[in-house]
């Protein structure tokens, strides 16, 4: 009996914690929207964040996509050879996979791990050293000064990074298609151009905006609600990265479902 009561108590406090966090998260989004509509945007901060999130993530994001494209070309070429005795539609497979799915998702995962972690750690450190409270006493608000610039920077930069990833992935696919499967360049590119339509591009492109909002809000939220000193910063950073990565993968399904329902596929 005691064990049941203990288990129920534990479940209750766990649920309370989840609902409290959900409430705080929703409140942060509402407050961010309110400051966005009422106060000028800190564009200098947006620029700094765009540099940090975008420029500094570009090499790792591009390299990851390049190798992903190479793997796709290697696998699709080998499978095609197995069934049809020659590597067919390698360019089509690589480009569709990269543009509609892997470009946005891989980029979001890489940026979550790199820039998202940096945001949570920076804001978490600011929180535990009272710098976030100092913002309130100096006439501004953390949602205005810290959250809005990071959310906007993510919205501006993530789609750009994903498009670059699309191209580098397709480029990586071409390298393997050419060297490993001996596919001529014109065949590889025609496989792409003949089958790819603008709506396929938008299918992947629109996902980036949802991922950008999810990653930036989650990492900022985990940062500004950090407590418990250095250990708390570590925990908040880990939680921010895990939550944002899982959110990207879950949201990916639902956004894809909506896009499919709207015929953007």
């Amino acid at each position, binding site marked *: 009996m005691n064990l049941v009561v203990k288990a129920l108590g534990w479940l209750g406090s766990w649920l309370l914690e989840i609902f409290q966090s959900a409430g705080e998260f929703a409140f942060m989004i509402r*407050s961010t929207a*309110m400051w966005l509509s*009422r106060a000028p945007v800190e564009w200098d901060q947006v620029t700094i964040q765009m540099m940090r999130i975008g420029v500094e993530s570009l090499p790792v994001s591009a390299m990851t996509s390049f190798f992903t494209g190479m793997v796709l070309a290697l696998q699709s070429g080998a499978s095609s050879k197995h069934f049809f005795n020659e590597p067919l539609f390698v360019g089509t497979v690589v480009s569709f996979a990269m543009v509609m799915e892997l470009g946005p998702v891989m980029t979001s995962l890489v940026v979550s791990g790199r820039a998202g972690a940096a945001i949570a750690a920076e804001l978490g*450190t*600011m929180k535990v*050293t*009272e*710098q976030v*409270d*100092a913002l*309130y*006493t*100096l*006439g*501004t*608000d953390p949602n205005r000064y810290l959250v809005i610039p990071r959310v906007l920077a993510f919205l501006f930069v993530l789609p750009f990074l994903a498009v670059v990833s699309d191209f580098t992935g397709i480029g990586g696919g071409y390298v393997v298609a050419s060297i490993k499967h001996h596919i001529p360049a014109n065949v590889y590119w025609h496989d792409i151009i003949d089958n790819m339509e603008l709506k396929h591009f938008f299918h992947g492109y629109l996902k980036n905006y949802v991922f950008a909002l999810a990653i930036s809000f989650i990492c900022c939220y985990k940062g500004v609600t950090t407590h418990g000193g250095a250990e708390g910063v570590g925990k908040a950073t880990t939680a921010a990265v895990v939550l944002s990565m899982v959110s990207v993968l879950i949201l990916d399904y639902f956004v894809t479902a909506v896009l499919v329902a709207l015929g953007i596929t």
Partner: protein
Amino acid sequence: MIDAVGVKKRYGSRPILRGVDIVVENGETLVIIGGSGCGKSTFLKCVIGLVHPDEGSIMVDGMDITKLAHETDIAQYRRRFGYLFQEAALFDSLTVWENVTFGLRYLTDIPTHKFRQVARDKLALVGLKDVEDFKPSELSGGMKKRVALARAIAAEPSYILYDEPTTGLDPIMSDVINDLILELQKQLKITSIVVTHDMKSAYKVGSRIAMLHEGRVLGVAHPEVIRISTNPYIRQFVDGLSHGPIKMRLKEFEADPVGAKVNGKA
């Protein structure tokens, strides 16, 4: 004037403030003393609106700040305050002059091209020169406190709240900070609340001293009256003794308020 009546705050099941009644007259420096965890800093954060009390009222210049619900109203209210944080809370990524002038663009109409000069002037007021382009990580603890003080007074607030201004400083630097508080008080005629457990500092800067214990005010009096107080709680604290009613209570983990019997008997 700040008039706090019956201010209560609890974090989860733990009561921090159990009904604080404090009046701060215009132009005075009220020092709040008390042991670690007695609710001094929480009270200070209630006054500036960083923490919302569960019960009670805090009237500032006739306005009850506990009734302010909208974020923009609270932000507007905070304009009249400067706040010195315990660990200075300077922004690591900004230089000293950017830290000092950070609030000016939100709190004043001073054009940005004058910010550097304002920073120089405020830094001179706290006794610093030629440090404008340093980063906070390049400063000593005492210098950080001075820069934080310059930042707190930059927008010329009506009130300054000091959260343990001398903590972590050597005795000489502590006295320098005390002198600065007195000097600013004289020059700017600001109403101040100083939270500290440094009795030397309390005697030196305070117009009156209030002792907080287990979330209640044990007594408020002139520093000289506090110095000769016979109240056993105040006596134990100001003398810094490990034996006495405060220690006993902490050991027993008793929840009952201890201030009831001694309240106001400074």
